């Protein structure tokens, strides 16, 4: 049965995506739920909770108030807290019950905004459909809509970039810092990292940027919207491994020169992958087939490195929902536990990269190479201690082919 999950946990939900993307921005995040959804986010989807002074709250939704539509109770609580805690903005974030009772998030947000004299954003997330990725798109999209200028200020220097779609649900700080360091080394200036940066101004970093760097599916969806609206080109991918990084920065140079968006690949970089293999001494390897079970953009970045290392075929599988990004990267989208476990157990692949919780369900065979990619949106803090830096050369230190 497609709906039965016996072995895997549900992945981080849409409301966690909203909260994760807004976490650092000085807002007051109010999850409209009874307790459990806030517990999910704070307890399992937010690695920054400890010693944090961020204003993450649960409205304490109760049955009678929900049935009677007694919204004033919650509006009052929010207004009292806002008056005392002085946030920059308020986000009212949905959960399953408000969805079922038809809570009007935008209407209530407008009412609070009128009375609090603060920007208030309503997010009709429901914890049922979609996943954290959709929440990230909603959150960053809404902030951009509110704060972004009508016209871009980029001066055409081609070296300013904005990182889109990075949250702690996808990346730890070590990987993000490695990415930023690589960008700096290659002469790029980062204008903002909405989702992991720490100011509302950074959310609109794209306004000063020449290129958006989409680092996840969420980032790609946002980048596509911004390209449509502002004509800002993007590159979707990450620099993973020595070869992959070369491929990445070649692609980035191309985007800067041509102002045409691009998805990371050897073809887009204008290089022949076979040449890379030969240069890397991989000619005779015939390393076989691999599958990477991750966000499609991250998985595609790993594929670039693996192909150069000699893998003949690298399949991408994203369990985080089908979207334009997965289609563009031709990623499979396993939609149930059964399909995810089938992917983990693909007999034709001996190299499997995925979160350790997923890999633990691989029926091991001789010669298997299982590469752990701990991901907070999957295994939360349970596997966080096994994180490692796969961006840049960090990959090569860990993955000795």
């Amino acid at each position, binding site marked *: 049965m497609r709906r039965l999950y016996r072995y895997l946990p549900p992945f981080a939900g849409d409301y966690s995506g909203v909260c994760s993307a807004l976490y650092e921005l000085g807002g007051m995040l109010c999850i409209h739920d009874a307790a459990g959804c806030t517990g999910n986010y704070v307890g399992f989807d937010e690695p920054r909770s400890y010693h944090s002074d961020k204003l993450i709250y649960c409205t304490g939704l109760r049955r009678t108030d929900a049935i009677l539509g007694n919204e004033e109770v919650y509006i009052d*609580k929010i207004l009292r807290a806002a008056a005392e805690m002085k946030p920059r903005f308020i986000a009212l974030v949905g959960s399953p019950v408000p969805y079922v009772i038809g809570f009007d998030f935008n209407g209530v947000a407008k009412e609070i905004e009128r009375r609090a004299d603060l920007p208030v954003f309503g997010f009709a997330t429901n*914890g049922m459909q979609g996943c954290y990725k959709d929440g990230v798109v909603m959150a960053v999209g809404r902030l951009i809509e509110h704060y972004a200028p009508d016209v871009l200020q980029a001066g055409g220097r081609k070296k300013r970039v904005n990182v889109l779609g990075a949250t702690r649900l996808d990346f730890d700080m070590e990987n993000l810092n490695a990415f930023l360091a690589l960008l700096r080394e290659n002469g790029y200036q980062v204008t903002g990292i909405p989702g992991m940066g720490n100011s509302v101004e950074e959310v609109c970093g794209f306004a000063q940027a020449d290129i958006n760097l989409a680092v996840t599916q969420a980032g790609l969806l946002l980048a596509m919207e911004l390209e449509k609206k502002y004509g800002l080109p993007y590159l979707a991918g990450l620099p993973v491994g020595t070869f992959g990084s070369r491929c990445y920065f070649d692609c980035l140079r191309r985007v800067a020169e041509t102002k045409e968006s691009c998805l990371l690949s050897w073809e887009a970089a204008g290089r022949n992958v076979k040449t890379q293999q030969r240069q890397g001494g991989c000619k005779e390897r015939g390393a076989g087939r691999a599958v990477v079970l991750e966000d499609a953009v991250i998985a595609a970045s790993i594929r670039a490195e693996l192909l150069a290392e000699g893998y003949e075929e690298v399949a991408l599988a994203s369990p985080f929902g089908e979207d334009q990004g997965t289609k563009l990267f031709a990623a499979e989208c396993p939609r149930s536990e059964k399909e995810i476990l089938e992917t983990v157990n693909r007999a034709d692949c001996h190299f499997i990269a995925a979160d350790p919780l997923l890999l633990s369900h691989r029926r091991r065979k001789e010669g298997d190479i299982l590469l752990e990619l701990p991901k907070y949106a999957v295994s939360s803090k349970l596997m966080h201690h096994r994180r490692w830096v796969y961006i840049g050369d960090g990959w090569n230190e860990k993955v000795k082919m």
Partner: protein
Amino acid sequence: MCVDHCFEKTLYYTSPGHGGWGIIRIAALVPQSHLMFICPSACFRHGALGAIQHGYKDRTSYLYIMPSDVVTGYDEIIMEGAKELLDGDEGIRVLFLFVACVDDFIGTDMDAVAKRVERQHPGVIVRACHMNPVAAETAKPPLVTCYQKMFSAIPAENRAAEKAVNLLGSFAPVDRECELFGFLDSCGGYQVRQLADYESFDAFCGMGRSLYNLVLMPGANFTAQFMDDTYGTRSLVSLISYDMEEIAEGYHKLALLLAGDEAGAKRLAAQFDFETVRQETIRSIRKAQETLGGMPVVVSDSAVLRPFSLARALLSYGFWVEEVIAQEVVGADRPAYEALCKEYPQLRITQPQHHRSAILQKGDTRMVGIGFEGAYLRQCDYVADLSGDEGMYGYYGVRRLMRMLERAVEQKADLKYMIEEYGAVV
């Protein structure tokens, strides 16, 4: 010291120290049971991860529901999911079907669904439960109903006839070192039975044959009433306490229940050397007091059900309790709270979930926190890692708490590590 109106209803802050036994972990105590959650996918994330953390993931599963199911209902999805689960796992003796908050607004007749599943799978006991914090402030919050459903799995043909006393409301087992065991044994060979002791469902059903129930927390009252009505047990409320007088009174009431009259109760009490136990407990209190040397203590409601009662007991023993961290005053704690208001007006009270608690206060951290949440909010250097009165009862509970306090001040706590090791509410 604040008065009642300091307990405000605000937006709830959830600190990293907030946690304890949630209904999933509690229900999983029923041996050979399986917990199937029928809920929006996000609702079960903490449950599944907590189950992995605490080692019972193989006994939980979930069926996710979609928005369209809210309109069409999901009875048939449950039937199908239960069939797949039970056909593939013959070791399941009890299946708990949990629905989440959304079902409070859909109104699935879960008892009827449970009966249908039971009919299709003879030999499996099926019970419908609710994981619905949206009903937290009703007369029957999720913990109360879930606990009753757990015991309702014991077949009704069991009758209270065996010389045993069930402990209701304790999730972690009370250690055999507790004088309760010795006392009950001295009363004619009564056994102590508690949920966490059992590894097989058949053995667990023995709790339906015990003559008595000892109710250790108010949330178990409903279950005790159910057991009295169904199996013919007799129940006595004897809440976990750290107050020597209240403990003595609890044992007196227990003796009275077993003996049937005052004379018999006195005879039973005389057969057991409570005085030695008391003296030993007093010595342990003095020793802990000396070790702490006047260091301030913060009592948290994450550590005990009745933080004001504990604070009052500690103050009466001579400890310096500086603050009680409690979200509300539960009914059974009200007398202690009211007494403290009069006797110790300087005592500070803080609601851990108040919106202001999101900002950690700066101040002297050289104090002992009893319970993780209070320790986190005050950033206490020293932490007694008690949670939810786990394993405590009687004089033994006091002695154990004193040992915890002594151990706590031996070295500064790595609170983050302790919290992570313990795990959040599941």
